[in-house]
């Protein structure tokens, strides 16, 4: 047993660190650090840096421009990127669709779509959930009917993250009502500019436009846009879910948030002393830190297993549940740490050009809002209740 990174992993970590130091502009890292809104152009700028370095799609096979990183390398990168306050890479195309295409797509699909993801030509969004199909995804009803060389798609997707930025959407659609519900589902790629598509914003509780409803009214989709075989979409979606859960434990995000929360606690004063020295608050910090350190190792134990070929199964459900609880607890402590200054909130202050003097400490504005926004972590990507159902069924045989 060796609980430390080996020498190659350390070399890799230093390389990643140096890259961030050199290529991540202070403008971008400050925006991330101070919770400013990222524009699409900001994300594109950063994706380009990563692509130039060959690190935009590190998990892809090298023949498609990937780096074939190990799970541990991915983890190191994730920790470092959060520590450096680098923008998040939107996972929909690069991290979700691409693995499915690489495994199940045709040669034409791979050679057409993969390079366009890397160079930023196409932005993707994920069209799985529907108003009536959330946790019970297999009940989805958006249907695609074959008509000559096309499918005609009718129905509605919802919660589509950044659908308003996207050029393309990959959807699960119903192509058959025969047999089990899971058997009549297909995986279809749809151009967001097709006639008959309408995107409507959903405003979240923090006032932000992050997700959308997407309506399909007789949308014509060429049959070449089917991935794999008709009615096999559920299998591909399940395959994708294992990828969606690779960073599921939120370790990098939690570590960075913990550091920033501790920084806040050391600057906020209580009874004439830094809050971080207050026994009540120090105990709260210590508890979450203890959980997080253990979680870091739980996560690495799963990842190292994955590197030696074991596909993460219910373990990823365990990582999801505990990882999101920890992440949300850190959000909770950050808002607590601010005391009364958690209250003021200005939406304009999240814009890049905003230069007015902040109300309260300059780090305060986004904190409560982030606490509310991150309630999503236990709802999406398989709610924590669904994950616990999976754990009790598959791990405990109950």
């Amino acid at each position, binding site marked *: 047993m060796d609980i430390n990174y080996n020498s190659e992993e350390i070399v890799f970590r230093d390389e990643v660190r140096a890259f961030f130091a050199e290529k991540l502009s202070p403008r971008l890292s400050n925006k991330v650090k101070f919770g400013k809104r990222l524009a699409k152009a900001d994300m594109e700028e950063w994706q380009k840096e990563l692509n130039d370095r060959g690190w935009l799609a590190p998990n892809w096979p090298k023949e498609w421009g990937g780096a074939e990183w190990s799970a541990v390398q991915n983890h190191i990168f994730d920790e470092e990127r959060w520590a450096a306050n680098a923008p998040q890479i939107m996972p929909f195309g690069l991290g979700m669709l691409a693995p499915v295409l690489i495994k199940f797509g045709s040669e034409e699909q791979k050679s057409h779509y993969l390079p366009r993801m890397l160079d930023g030509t196409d932005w993707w969004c994920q069209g799985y*959930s529907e108003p*009536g199909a*959330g*946790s*019970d995804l297999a*009940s989805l009803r958006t249907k695609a009917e074959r008509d000559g060389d096309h499918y005609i798609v009718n129905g509605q997707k*919802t*919660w589509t993250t950044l659908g308003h930025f996207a050029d393309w959407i990959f959807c699960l659609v119903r192509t058959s009502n025969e047999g089990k519900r899971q058997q009549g589902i297909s995986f279809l790629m749809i151009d967001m500019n097709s006639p008959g598509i309408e995107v409507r914003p*959903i*405003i*979240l*509780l923090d*006032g932000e436009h992050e*997700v959308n409803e997407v309506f399909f009214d007789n949308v014509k989709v060429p049959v070449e846009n089917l991935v794999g075989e008709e009615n096999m979409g559920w299998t591909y979606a399940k395959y994708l879910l294992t990828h969606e859960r690779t960073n599921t434990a939120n370790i990098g995000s939690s570590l960075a948030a913990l550091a920033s929360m501790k920084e806040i606690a050391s600057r*906020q*004063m*209580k*009874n*004439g002393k830094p*809050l971080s020295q207050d026994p*009540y*608050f120090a105990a*709260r910090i210590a508890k979450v830190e203890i959980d997080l350190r253990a979680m870091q190792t739980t996560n690495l134990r799963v990842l190292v297993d994955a590197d030696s070929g074991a596909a993460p199964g219910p373990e990823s459900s365990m990582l999801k549940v505990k990882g999101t609880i920890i992440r949300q607890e850190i959000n*909770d402590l950050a*808002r*607590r740490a*601010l*005391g*009364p*200054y*958690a*209250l*003021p*909130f*200005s939406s304009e202050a999240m814009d890049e050009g905003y230069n007015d003097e902040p*109300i*309260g400490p300059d780090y305060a504005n986004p904190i*409560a*809002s982030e*606490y*509310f926004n991150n*309630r*999503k972590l*236990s*709802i*999406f990507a398989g*709610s*924590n*209740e669904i994950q*616990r159902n999976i754990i009790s069924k598959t791990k405990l045989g109950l």
Partner: protein
Amino acid sequence: MDFNLSDDRRMLSETLSRFLGDKYSIEKRHECAASDDGFSRDMWNEFAELGIVGALFSEENGGFGGGGEDINVVFEQLGRALVVEPFLPTLLAGSLISELGSDAQKEMLEGVISGEKLIAFAHGEPGSRYEIERVTAKAEKAGDGWQLNGNKSVVLGGGAADTLIISARTSGDEDSANGISLFVVDAGAAGLDVRSFGTVDGYPAAEIAMRNVSGELLGNEGEAFEAIEKAYGRATLAVCAEAMGAMDVAKDFTVEYMHQRKQFGVEIGKFQVLQHRMADVLIELEQMRSSIINASGHMNDDRVIRERMVSSAKHLAGRIGRQVAEEAIQIHGGNGMTWEYAVSHYAKRIIMIDHLFGDTDHHLERYISIGA
């Protein structure tokens, strides 16, 4: 023993509840919150006409209530509708004027109760967190009057107030209970800089900076602490009751949603894990209600019992509030995350009440330090 409300209070509660049901939909609430003032002056006048503002003042001060139970009844209803009008600032500043004001100063209460005049209490400071003793703003004698210098932060209702009650130190160390004085300051006073903003849950507040602002002493010089503590106690009870109302509604929304929403072919309310969690919510809400009854019942008792009960209630409001708000969002799934579903706004208010007048940790510590 009798845990029923008196007829008067039941009527007050029903009147307010009916009025809010008719006039204060969630859409109306958002409209009030999004307006320039951050609340509606028209609504405020209607509340005053209905006697709801007067219910926060005793008869001798021109009202018809002012006791712990009145506060409890009024604020629970306000919480049920997420009312953004300035009841809390009125209660705070009004308590101080009632307690300490000279006859001349008390004259302004008439205008307050009738809704014409808005008041607020500016006490917290950028570095004071939840300590009510910590006051660094200074007041010095200048001629016949006083001059104030310093900063006040997150002043509820501070932007719209016509008159502010402002605390400042006239002697003693910056964290000493002795040496704090209160001043009546006109909102238009020279040197007073008021910067309004909205809170994350939609209520109006302001940052205040003072440079040689003239004020008139309220109460005795250096002896305001006791009255401030009492006024904070009343306001703390008020937000506990407000949280109670908001939590009860969030619970009802959630249970209703559990009946409506189907996944896997059944109502999600059929899933036992969700049933148990809402059963826990219900148990905790009864605990919350009891601790509010304790606090309002002891509002006029000796400091130790009164303040311990206030801190008990606020400690629970923070702890239980988080549980109720988070469960409400979680069980609503994606819909609980949206602006459109009212439950999210209830959750925000419930959580942010933890940041008013001391959070759950503060009141745990205070409960211990006040002693038995």
